[in-house]
């Protein structure tokens, strides 16, 4: 691990009530699959982000359980139906127990 994973999230700042918005997320992470071997032939231990979850005003919206087959720098997009203003919380959980998060505001109206 060389750099700390940095999440990047794209959420529209404003939406009309009832509008369907697409949320795109990306986080820098090598997603070491546990299948690769180093130059000495030793298996490189698995280290991936195994869970991504999104909630809005504290209520769960969407979650994804990632397996080692997810590419490095994992991308995830999904939809959300805007009904009220509030704040998204996005959380990425690493195999080593660390958590990375991002908060993004959405204004409806």
């Amino acid at each position, binding site marked *: 691990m060389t750099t700390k994973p940095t999440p990047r999230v794209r959420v529209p700042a404003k939406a009309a009530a009832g509008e369907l918005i697409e949320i795109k997320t990306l986080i820098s992470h090598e997603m070491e699959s546990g299948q690769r071997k180093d130059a000495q032939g030793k298996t490189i231990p698995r280290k991936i982000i195994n869970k991504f979850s999104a909630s809005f005003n504290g209520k769960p919206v969407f979650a*994804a359980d990632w397996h*080692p087959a*997810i590419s490095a720098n994992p991308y*995830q997009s999904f*939809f959300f139906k805007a009904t009220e203003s509030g704040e998204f919380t996005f959380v990425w959980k690493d195999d080593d127990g660390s958590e990375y998060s991002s908060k993004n505001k959405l204004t409806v109206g």
Partner: protein
Amino acid sequence: MSSPIAGLTRRSTLTAGALAAFASLLGSRLAFADDKMVMAEIKKLYGDKSLAEGKIKLDVPEIAENGLVVPVNVEVESPMTEADYVKAVHIYADGNPQPGIVSYSFTPACGKASAATRMRLAQTQNIVCVAEMSNGALHMAKANVKVTIGGCGG
């Protein structure tokens, strides 16, 4: 008709040698999942429940040049209301070291049961997608992706 020995030209000998080398290369690699393992994973979650066709739009490229980054987009037809929504979607691959790729959980707040990510594929294989509706019904879709360069490190 020539005898099998006489028929063994320089070219065919070379091809056979190359094939044997390739086979031993494959043999030395890790074991891969197969169709049965994917079905076993589905059975683990849902038992012997029947899997209906339709409702799922599984969007993967027909040919992936780079197996390290293959876009996968899934969309399940559903009104996404409290009474009728898509609860979960699982995506599997039958030719990777492990069958699981991703499992999504949706809520009615999503408004649309659709999600996209990028996956690694070790070789040409089938992608299997299972969607669980809020009423317990299961749907399944399958697609084949041809992979030119595998994405399994090695």
